[in-house]
């Protein structure tokens, strides 16, 4: 496998999209090719960095905001079954009032 072919496979490899056979072939090539090895390192490192640092998982919507959204949606679809519940807590979804139009 030459550098040109390996360079096309490095991206998919960093996303774990290659078959084991192709994955092994790229790994083997990178052992002896500093340029491709560097590219593989870049793709894997940047992917991990972005994944670990760019999303603030603590940034979530508030219950008040969620309820506001559900109220707007209920206003838009008033004839839906069980529009009474807007609770964020799934366990509180009980006895929905049937508002279906005939």
């Amino acid at each position: 496998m030459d550098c040109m072919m390996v360079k096309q496979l490095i991206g998919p490899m960093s996303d774990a999209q290659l078959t084991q056979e192709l994955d092994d072939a790229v790994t083997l090539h990178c052992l002896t090719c500093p340029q491709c090895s560097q590219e593989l390192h870049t793709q894997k490192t940047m992917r991990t960095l972005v994944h670990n640092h760019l999303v603030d998982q603590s940034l979530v919507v508030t219950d008040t905001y969620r309820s506001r959204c559900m109220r707007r949606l209920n206003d838009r679809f008033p004839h839906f079954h069980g529009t009474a519940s807007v609770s964020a807590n799934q366990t509180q979804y009980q006895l929905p009032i049937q508002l279906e139009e005939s």
Partner: protein
Amino acid sequence: MQISYEHRLIERFQRGDHKAMELLVDHYIDGLLRFVIRIVGSREDAEDVVQDALIKSFERAYQFRGTPSSFGAWLYSIARSTALDRRRQLRFPFAQMTLIDDISAPVQPDSNLHALLWSAFERMSEDDQTVLFLCDAENMSHADVGIIMERSTAAISSQLYRARRRLRDEMARVKEVTPWIA
């Protein structure tokens, strides 16, 4: 969310099942807020955009014949265009992102690396930021990101691989000019 499960929820929603709509909202709302806040820069504006996007998407899904191939991609696509419109109204260039309190991520133990990454990321184009954010941070499929950005799956893949290289170069540049960061 698995596509088959999402399809079932959409079908239930189209039959007027409120619970299905609620489950879809719960699945997407936090990720949407994180995505949009990065574009518009404030939580208040992001919340308006997300709410509008949810309503538009459900209206469209309700009127749609059949099941959309990916409701999530649809939702993000509408949120993105609404957010970009809002951003244009605010005349808020991408380079100003550092000033925004709402999206400055919490301080982490390796905060030098964290700061360096953010600093470099903020200097990238909106397209680069979007592919990196959706593919690598939110783990979306390249096909779904293609729907969101109106490009082919192959185009998204190559843009992502180029964006990762540009991010590395930008981090190296930032590190050079701001040695106190790292």
